C-alpha cells in the first residue's frame, strides 16, 4: 500500500515511562469534559483532551512545546468531572516538569499569565476573568498592554454575554484566610502552579 501512515506509539510510550502519572492517559475516552470545563481553555493552545490525543498520535513537539501544560493552574475543575477519574492535573504537571527537564521553556506571556492567576487566587480566592487578562496584558508594559487587550476584546464581550465574566469585580470568597494558608503551604511544597 502506498501513502501508508505508520502508527508511532514511541512518544506515548515515552510519556507512560517517564512522566509522572503519564500512564493515566490510557484511560482517557476522549469525551472532552476536561477541555469543555477548563477555565483557561480560551488561553490554551491545546486543552487537556487534545494534549492526550496528541500524545497518542505521537506529536512530541506539539505536546512538550505546548503552553497549556505550563498554564494549568490546578484548579481541579477537570479532575473532579473527568468520567474516567483521570488525575488530569497530575498528568499536566507531570508533562510540564518533563518538558522543562527536556529544555522546553514557557513563553513569556504564559509565565506572566500563570503568575497573575496565582496572585489573584491568593487575593480573592477566585478568578476574576475580566481582571486577570488586564493584569496579564499590562505586565509587558503599557503600549503592548493596550494592544493585547484590544485583541482580547472579542472574547471578553462573548464571555460577558454569557455571564461568564461579570461586569463588577469579583469579591473575595468566604474563608479566604484558610485558603491562603493552604496556598502558602502548597507554595512551600513547591507545587504552586506548573511553572513554580
Amino acid at each position, binding site marked *: 500500500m502506498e501513502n501508508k501512515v505508520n502508527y508511532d506509539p514511541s512518544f506515548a510510550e515515552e510519556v507512560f515511562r517517564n512522566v509522572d502519572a503519564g500512564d493515566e492517559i490510557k484511560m482517557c*475516552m*476522549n*469525551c*472532552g*469534559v*476536561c*477541555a*469543555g*470545563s477548563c477555565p483557561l*481553555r*480560551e488561553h490554551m493552545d491545546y*486543552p487537556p*483532551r*487534545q494534549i492526550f490525543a496528541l500524545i497518542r498520535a505521537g506529536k512530541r513537539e506539539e505536546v512538550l512545546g505546548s503552553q497549556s501544560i505550563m498554564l494549568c493552574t490546578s484548579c481541579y475543575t477537570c479532575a*473532579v*468531572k*473527568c*468520567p*474516567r*477519574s483521570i488525575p488530569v492535573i497530575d498528568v499536566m504537571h507531570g508533562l510540564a516538569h518533563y518538558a522543562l527537564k527536556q529544555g522546553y521553556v514557557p513563553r513569556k506571556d504564559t509565565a506572566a499569565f500563570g503568575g497573575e492567576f496565582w496572585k489573584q487566587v491568593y487575593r480573592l480566592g477566585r478568578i476574576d476573568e475580566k481582571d486577570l487578562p488586564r493584569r496579564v496584558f499590562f505586565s509587558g508594559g503599557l503600549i503592548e498592554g493596550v494592544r493585547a487587550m484590544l485583541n482580547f476584546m472579542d472574547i471578553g464581550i*462573548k464571555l460577558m454575554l*454569557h*455571564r461568564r465574566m461579570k461586569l463588577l469585580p469579583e469579591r473575595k470568597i468566604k474563608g479566604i484566610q484558610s485558603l491562603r494558608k493552604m496556598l502558602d503551604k502548597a507554595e512551600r511544597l513547591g507545587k504552586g502552579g506548573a511553572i513554580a
Partner: protein
Amino acid sequence: MADVQTTSQAILVVGGGMSGITAALEAAEAGYDVVLVERNPYLGGRVTQLYQYFPKLCPPNCGLEINFRRMRQNPKVRFFTMAEVASISGREGDYDVTVKMAPRYVNEKCTCCGKCAEACEAEIDNPFNYGMDKIKAAYLPHEFAFPMRYILDPSIVGTDQGKKCLDACEYGAIDPDMKETTFDLKVGAIVWAAGWNPYDAAKIDYYGFGEYKNVITNVMMERMAAPNGPTGGRILRPSDKKEPKNIAFIQCAGSRDENHLPYCSGICCLASLKQTTYVRERKPDCDIAIFFIDIRALDRLEDFYVKVQADPKVAFIKSKIANITEDEGTGNLILEGENTRTGEQILMNFDMVVLATGMVPNRIELDAAPDVTHDEYGFFTNNPEQPGIYGAGCVRTPTDVASSVQDATAGALKAIQSIARR
C-alpha cells in the same frame, strides 16, 4: 385475604415487569405453579411508562395486553400487586418466603366508575408521570392498568376526603379498614426480576436537573410524548409550557462515569434516537442536537441509528457536555463543552435539554435473604454456590425489552431445573 397454598414445587417471581411476567408465564405454561409479587399497584413495570418501543415505534401496550391475557387464562400463575418480599430463608428446593402486602383500600368489586375520584378533592403528585402533574388521591394508576382497579392514597384514608370517596362508591368497593397483611409461601426456586430505577439526575450537579426547569430526563420525555401523559402527548417546556424550537439530548448523563454509574446503561442511546422521532413527528421544524461520546446502537439496531442520522434536523455532536447554565430571563439553557471532532469550544443555547440518564438495578435488600452475589456495579450475578435463586432482565444487565424477555425465559428454565433436581 391472601390464602396462598404453595409447595416446594412452586416458583416465586419477584417483580412484575416484562422480565417477571415473562418468567412467570414461561414457567406456568410449562406446568409449574407460580406466584408473582409486584410492588406497584399494577403489572408491567417501567415499559408501561414508555410511549413507544424502539426500533419499531409500536406502543408497549399491545405486547403487555397479550401477556395479561395469557396470565388471565392460566390458573397456574397467581399474582399480587402492592406486594413485596419481606424475607427469604432456606435453600434450593426449599425456600420459606414472607410476602408483605400494602393496603389498596379498594377491593375487587371496583368497576372503575370513577365516582370516588370525582368526589375526592385532595391531589397527590402523579407517580406514573414522574411527578410532572397531579392526580386525585383516589385514582386509577393509569388508563391501561392491570389489574384495572382504583386505589386510595394512604394520605386520605381516615380523613374527610376518604369519607367522601367511601360515600361516593355505589359498589361497596372502598374499604378504609384494610391493613397491611403478610403471608408465607413455600417455593422451590426464585426468579429475581425487580428491574431498574432511573439514575437520580440531580446528582450530576453541573447539569442543573431539579434547578433548571427545562432540563428533563429521558423517562420524563417518554411520559410527555404519551397521549395519556401529563401534557396529553405534547412536548412542552416545563417553565412556560411553550413548544421548544430546539432540543438538546445529552448522552451518558451519569453513565460511563466513575463519579456516578461507571457502566454503560446500554439503552439510552437508542432511547434518545427514538425520542428524536417523537419530537419530529409533532414539530417538524424543531432542531435537535444529540451530544454523545459514542453512539451505542448495536447489531440490527444500527439501522435505526442510520435512519435518524439521515434526518437533516438532527445534528450529532461528539462531545460530553461539561456544563449547563440557565439564562434566567428566558429559561433557555447554555451548554458548554468541546466538540472533540473539530476541537472547537461549544457554547450553544437550547430551549430544552433531555438528559439520557441510565439504569440502576434493584438489588435484593432484605434483612433476611440467601447470599446472592452482585457484580461490582450492583447487577445480580447467578451464583453457582447459591443455586435456586436467579436474576432475570435488567437486574442482571441494563438492556432492552427483547433481551430482558430472552433472559427471563432462561431464568424460568433455571428455576424449573432447580425444582426438577430435587
